[in-house]
């Protein structure tokens, strides 16, 4: 069967790797620039909110890249779990995206340092500690939300993700040389347990890293919400990456229209799933109308955030839902790549809407600008990391036993 595999260019374009130093420099400049911009973001009260806005922007931009990496890790595992053959030719790109997590998580260290070495409430209000005038409901949660316990949990979450990402990548690399199909069986066997660990880590990671920015509030569906956004942005990144690689003469035969069509279907599915989860969370809290549950939404329904919320309904759900519904659209690579770009754009707004609207932080031009520049900087850093991580690695798992089937993949005219 190996003879069926077309002679395709499966390496990253050399000029992409050459961009890495420029990207790193641009990324650092953007993040610093963002600090400056956020400094001028206005608050509703007397207090200056600049440093809070920057810290939260940093967190949301960090989570932006981490979310689609986690999405790719899940994708890799679930493809093994269900023994999917169609995805064999694109799975390596997902493995590579997930493989950036070990290095990317280093960028969480500043946040961790803020928690461990200071008592500043810039990101996590609970960080001030007991007896500092926190509301009773937060005070009682300090047994869970304290620097030591928080750090331990963070290490566990990232430990699970890093282990899974490294293991799947290195095993798949090993198969590139040996072509041993036992490796695939092994990866399949452990996909189930690892997915369970991954789900727990993602769920509680979402609680700790993002939800505890508003420690009084709680939502049991929050982890699923982040998961929905992660998968959605992951498929968007995949579509864009495949499109760009093909534009540069890579993977021209390995990734065909059917693969694009399927990634687009998944993206469409997760648009709906995101809408479903986001609305479920809102509906229950809106209907119950209990103060401690609705406060989070209250922050997001005033000081200009309400327009961001409405924008999300329109642009994170309605527009891409109708826009990518048609088969015709899904089979047009350039068109889908633009929709994927749009999805990533609204995913940024979604993360901003989840993290930034805190007490005393209204929407302002400087906030949006600072956040956007921070995001651009972090994306530059991520892109540099990705190209360095890929290096000479083949972009397709060339000896995957499923690959011939994936290449013969066809569903219709």
């Amino acid at each position, binding site marked *: 069967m190996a003879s069926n595999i077309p002679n395709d260019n499966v390496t990253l374009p050399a000029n992409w790797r050459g961009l890495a130093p420029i990207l790193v420099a641009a990324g650092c400049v953007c993040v610093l620039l963002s600090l400056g911009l956020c400094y001028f973001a206005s608050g509703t009260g007397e207090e200056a909110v600049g440093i809070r806005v920057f810290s939260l922007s940093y967190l949301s931009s960090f989570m932006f890249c981490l979310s689609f990496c986690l999405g790719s890790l899940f994708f890799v595992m679930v493809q093994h779990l269900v023994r999917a053959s169609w995805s064999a030719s694109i799975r390596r790109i997902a493995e590579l995206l997930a493989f950036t997590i070990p290095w990317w998580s280093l960028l969480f260290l500043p946040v961790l340092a803020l928690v461990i070495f200071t008592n500043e409430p810039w990101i996590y209000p609970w960080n001030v500690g007991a007896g500092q005038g926190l509301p009773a409901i937060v005070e009682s949660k300090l047994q869970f939300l304290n620097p030591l316990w928080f750090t331990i949990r963070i290490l566990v979450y990232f430990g699970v993700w890093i282990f899974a990402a490294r293991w799947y990548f290195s095993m798949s690399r090993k198969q590139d040389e040996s072509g041993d199909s036992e490796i695939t069986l092994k990866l399949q066997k452990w996909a189930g347990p690892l997915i369970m660990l991954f789900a727990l880590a993602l769920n509680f990671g979402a609680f700790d890293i993002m939800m505890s920015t508003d420690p009084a509030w709680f939502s049991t569906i929050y982890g699923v919400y982040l998961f929905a956004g992660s998968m959605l942005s992951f498929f968007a990144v995949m579509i864009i990456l495949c499109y760009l690689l093909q534009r540069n003469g890579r993977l021209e035969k390995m990734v065909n229209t059917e693969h694009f069509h399927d990634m687009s279907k998944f993206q469409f599915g997760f648009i709906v799933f995101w809408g479903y989860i986001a609305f479920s969370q809102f*509906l229950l809290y809106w*209907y119950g109308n209990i103060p401690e549950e609705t406060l989070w939404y209250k922050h997001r329904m005033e000081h200009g955030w309400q327009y961001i919320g409405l924008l999300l309904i329109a642009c994170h759900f309605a527009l891409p839902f109708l826009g990518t519904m048609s088969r015709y659209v899904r089979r047009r690579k350039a068109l889908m790549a633009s929709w994927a770009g749009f999805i990533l754009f609204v995913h940024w707004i979604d993360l901003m809407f989840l993290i930034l609207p805190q007490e005393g932080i209204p929407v302002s031009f400087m906030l949006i600008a600072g956040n956007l520049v921070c995001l651009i900087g972090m994306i530059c850093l991520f892109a540099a990391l990705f190209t360095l991580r890929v290096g000479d690695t083949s972009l397709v798992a060339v000896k995957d036993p499923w690959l011939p089937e994936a290449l013969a993949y066809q569903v*219709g005219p």
Partner: protein
Amino acid sequence: MSHPKPEKKSSEPKSFGWMAEYEDENKLLDAARKVRDSGYTRIDAFTPFPVHGIDEALGIKPTVLPWFTFCAGATGTLTALTMQWWMNAYDYPYIISGKPFASWPAFIPVTFELTVLFSAFMTLFAMLGLNGLPKLSNALFNNPRFDRATDDRFFLWVDSRDKYFNSDKVRNLLADTGAIEVDEVKEDDSSDIVPRKLVLAILTAIGATLIPGVIVLNMRNSKSSSPRWHVFFDMDYQPSKRPQSKTTLFVDGRSQRQPVQGTIARGDLDLADPYELGYDPDQLADSRSASTRLVSLNAQDGQETGSEQAGDAASEDGAMAAASEAELPWVQEFPEGVVSEEMFQLGKLKFEQNCSVCHGYSGYGDGLVSQRALNLAQGYWLQPTSLHDDRILEQPVGRIYYTIKNGKGKMGGYAASLNAEERWAVVLYVRALQRSQNASQADVPEGVDLELGAAE
């Protein structure tokens, strides 16, 4: 495309084209492409499993089915939103959980369901329609070899109804495609009489469906001394309490709860309004504050304080009745907006609907109820008050209003039947009646030529 209908007694079964049999899907795909490229459009393939690329090989155009689904889904969305808005916000506004009548978030789950339901049904039925299903018989089944289409063989069929169909050409074409067998598809000429067993089975099934209905009918029309069989016991015996009943759940033993202290029920905000009361509560409070013998009223928010009846706004009128009614500072003049032609007509209507049965159409206390009671001559019937008594004529409008609202003697209050506006309309009409029955020559407007009747 139409073809002559075969004669019933035709000896030769009608041909439906040619069918070719292949051993694997690749041969079938090649053959399908070849037949497609020869210009035939009415062709179809039959395979034991889905074959990738068969649509393209057969030249099947993308289906229009998604448009049916989309339109039905959009219809479902709009139907659900319109329906819920019309029900909850327009036709039967009802407060649920203190939300607005048009609560769009609450509409979304139903909207989602109806969108899915409409599109699912439309997809199914449109698919059936587009495929011409259900089709009870197909000539292909005549050939026993075709049974292997669900097993290990692949078939290609060129329909004789194709525009360019030519029997010999098609057979030769198919024979050239590597088919292991090319057969003519013949019309099923077996007897079209429905088998007796099938008829019996269908009749039995129909009969069986009638059984539940017969049982229900029988039970509805027969009497039984055994207790009723409760299918849903907790629906027949619900834990909810009836009004005015007792309960052990609350310390005071009442199943109904008092309004929460400091709250006012919907529609009771006007309790301190003379228009609503018929007297001026402010004036009353002023006069009461001087004396210490009665409950002090906080008339501003219609709530009593400093008494054991605190919080029970409804008992206020009771307290008033207990107090000397003559003392109340009655509204003396019609409130603004009451004296008008429309209010008069409304008052006439409401008076005739609610009051005339006892008081009579002219207000003499000779309504039909009264006439009937007097005819029965049971002795204890007290004739309703004539509205033309001096006592009533002298009453201020607020007093009459108060009587309509709260009742007097044997007459019950009409607060539940008439709202404040309607009560004032009735007062206006009563005043007009009094004027009409007790008019003098001076009441006749200038220029009206009045011919005095025999009664004068």
